[in-house]
C-alpha cells in the first residue's frame, strides 16, 4: 500500500498533495467552525499530519506539520486572523501542537525507514540464499569430477604396486569420465555466459535438418547406453535458414537430457516437420515418467533442478535450450504426454528452400 502510494507520487506532487490536504481540511473546519471548537481542529490536523507521514517523504511531512500549525494559529486560535496568541493556555497549546506534529512526523517517518531496511534485508537474504544454492550445485558439479581426477591420479601414483591391472584400468576410466563431465559443465557455463552477455547473434545459413539430427545422434551415441531413438522426418522437408551451431546445441541438450533422466525401458523420439507458414517444428519426446506438473513452469529457469532428482546436473541445459531457441526468434513448450512421457515442442520461423528447386540435374 505505502509502496503503491510512493510510486504514484513524485517529490513535487507529494508537496502539492500534502499542502492541499492540509488546506482543504482546514477550510472544511473553518466552514464548520461554529460547530467545532478550535481545540478539536488541532486534533483533526494532527491526525492528518500523521496520515501524511505514513505515506510521504520527510520533507513534505515537515512542511505539512508547519503549515498546519500556522493555519491553526491564524484561522482558529483566538484572536482569529492574527498570528498573535493571547492566553497562556493557548500559547502552551500551540507549542504542544507544534511539538506533537513534528514528533509525529519524524517518528512515523523513522518507523517507515526501519521497515524499508527490514524489507531490503529480506530481499538481500533471499538473493543470498538463491546464490548459495546456485553456488552449491555448481561447485558440486565442478568439484565432483575434479575430486575424482585428483583422487584417482594420486592413487595411481602412490599405490602403483598394490593395484591390480584391472583396478588401474578402472581408475583411468573414471578419470576419463570425470574429465568429459567437467568439459560438458564448462561448455554449459560458456554457453550460458554467451547468452547472458547479450551478444549472441545467430549466424543463419542453410541447414539440412536430417543431417543435423543424425549429426547430434552420432555425437551422443555413447550417452544412450542402448536407449532407442526414433527419428521421424517429414518427407520433402525443405532446408531452413537457421544457425546450425545453436540448433545443434538445442537438440543436443534436449536429447542428452532425455537420455540421462528417462528410465531404461523408455524410448526417445524426434519429429521434424514444417508448418504452413514455414516454421520449423522440432519435437523431442520420450516415454519416460514426464515432469511433475507443478514444476513444468520452472524447468527452463536458470539453475532450476527438479526436486526429486538424483542425477547430477547444473540446471543449465534447458535454460540454454530456451535461450538459444529464443535467440533465433522461436518458442519452446514443454508438456507431458497424455499417458506418459514428456514432449518438448520447438517452433522457429525461418526462410526455407525446397530441395526439388535446387537439386535437378541430369
Amino acid at each position, binding site marked *: 500500500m505505502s509502496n503503491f502510494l510512493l510510486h504514484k507520487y513524485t517529490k513535487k506532487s507529494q508537496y502539492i498533495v500534502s499542502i492541499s490536504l492540509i488546506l482543504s481540511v482546514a477550510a472544511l473546519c473553518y466552514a464548520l467552525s461554529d460547530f467545532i471548537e478550535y481545540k478539536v481542529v488541532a486534533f483533526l490536523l494532527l491526525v492528518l499530519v500523521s496520515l501524511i507521514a505514513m505515506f510521504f517523504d520527510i520533507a513534505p511531512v515537515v512542511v505539512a506539520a508547519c503549515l498546519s500549525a500556522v493555519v491553526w494559529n491564524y484561522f482558529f486560535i483566538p484572536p482569529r486572523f492574527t498570528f498573535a496568541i493571547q492566553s497562556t493556555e493557548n500559547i502552551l497549546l500551540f507549542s504542544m501542537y507544534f511539538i506533537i506534529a513534528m514528533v509525529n512526523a519524524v517518528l512515523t517517518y523513522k518507523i517507515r525507514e526501519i521497515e524499508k531496511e527490514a524489507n531490503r534485508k529480506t530481499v538481500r537474504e533471499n538473493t543470498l540464499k538463491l546464490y548459495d544454492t546456485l553456488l552449491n550445485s555448481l561447485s558440486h558439479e565442478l568439484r565432483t569430477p575434479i575430486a575424482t581426477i585428483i583422487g584417482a591420479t594420486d592413487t595411481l601414483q602412490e599405490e602403483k604396486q598394490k593395484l591390480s591391472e584391472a583396478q588401474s584400468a578402472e581408475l583411468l576410466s573414471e578419470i576419463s569420465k570425470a*574429465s568429459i563431465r567437467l*568439459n560438458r559443465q564448462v561448455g554449459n557455463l560458456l554457453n550460458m555466459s554467451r547468452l547472458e552477455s547479450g551478444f549472441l547473434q545467430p*549466424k543463419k*545459413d*542453410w*541447414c*539440412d535438418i*536430417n*543431417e543435423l539430427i*543424425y*549429426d547430434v545422434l*552420432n555425437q551422443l551415441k555413447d550417452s544412450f547406453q542402448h536407449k532407442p531413438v526414433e*527419428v521421424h522426418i517429414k518427407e520433402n522437408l525443405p*532446408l531452413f535458414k537457421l544457425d*546450425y*551451431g545453436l540448433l*545443434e546445441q538445442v537438440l543436443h541438450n534436449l536429447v542428452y537430457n532425455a537420455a540421462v533422466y528417462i528410465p531404461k525401458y523408455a524410448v526417445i523420439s524426434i519429429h521434424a516437420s514444417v508448418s504452413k507458414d514455414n516454421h520449423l517444428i522440432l519435437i523431442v519426446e520420450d516415454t519416460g515418467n514426464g515432469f511433475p506438473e507443478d514444476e513444468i513452469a520452472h524447468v527452463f529457469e536458470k539453475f532450476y533442478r527438479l526436486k526429486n532428482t538424483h542425477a547430477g546436473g547444473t540446471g543449465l541445459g534447458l535454460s540454454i535450450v530456451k535461450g538459444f531457441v529464443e535467440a533465433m526468434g522461436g518458442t519452446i513448450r514443454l508438456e507431458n504426454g497424455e499417458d506418459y512421457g514428456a514432449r518438448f515442442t520447438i517452433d522457429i520461423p525461418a526462410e526455407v*528452400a525446397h*530441395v526439388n528447386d*535446387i*537439386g535437378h*540435374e*541430369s
Partner: protein
Amino acid sequence: MNPNAIEILVIDDEPQIRKLLEITLQSNGYKVREAPTAREGLALAASHPPDMILLDLGLSDESGHVVLQSLRQWYTRPVIILSVQSSEEAIVTALDLGANDYLVKPFRSGELLARIRSVLRSAATEPEEQLIVSGDLQIDLRLRIVKKNHEPVKLTGTEYSLLALLARNEGKVLTHQFLLRTIWGPSFVDQSQYLRVYVAQLRKKIETDHNAPQHLITESGIGYRFV
C-alpha cells in the same frame, strides 16, 4: 611411412599441453620439437624445417593466425591447428589461411594421432594421384568412375566434381565457402543450399547408411571432410 623419421614441431604456450603432446607423440614414434612462443616457433621452423607443425591459435606473443600466415609464405608441409576457441570464424579463418586441419581442445589423443597420420598421408601422395581408395569406395580420377563395393555408382556432373574435390583433399576439412567457390563459382559463395542438397544426394549414393556417413563427414558450421 616410418614415423621414426618424422619430426613434428609443437608451438603452444601451455607447458602442460606441450608435455602431453611430447609424450603422446614420442610414444608413437614421432620426433618432437617444442616452442612456447610464436617467435621461437617461427625461428625453429626456419632453422629445422619439421615434417609437420601443431600450432596453437592462442599464443601469448602473437596470434596463431599471424604465425600461420607467415609460415605459409614458404612452408608447404602440413599444419594442424590446436585451439580452445571453438568459434567457427576462428577455425574457418585458419583453414582459409592454409591450415590442413584443426582440433578443438580438449581433444582425444586417438583423434589427434589419426589426424596427424591423415595429413601426413595426403602430403605424401602425389598431387594428381589417379586412384583414390577409401574403404568400400574407389574413385578413379582419370576415367571419372566411382565404384562402391566394386559396383559403379552413377553420379551427376556436379556430384562427381564435389566428391572428386573432397577426395583429392582426403582427410582435410574443406570450408563451405571454398567448396561453393570452386564447384559452383564465386557468385555462389553465399548459396550454401546447393552444397547441402548435393552432399545429401551424394551420401545417398556413396554411403552405406546415409544418416551415419563414413566418407563425407560434417564439420558443423565449418565444412566437410572426406575420409
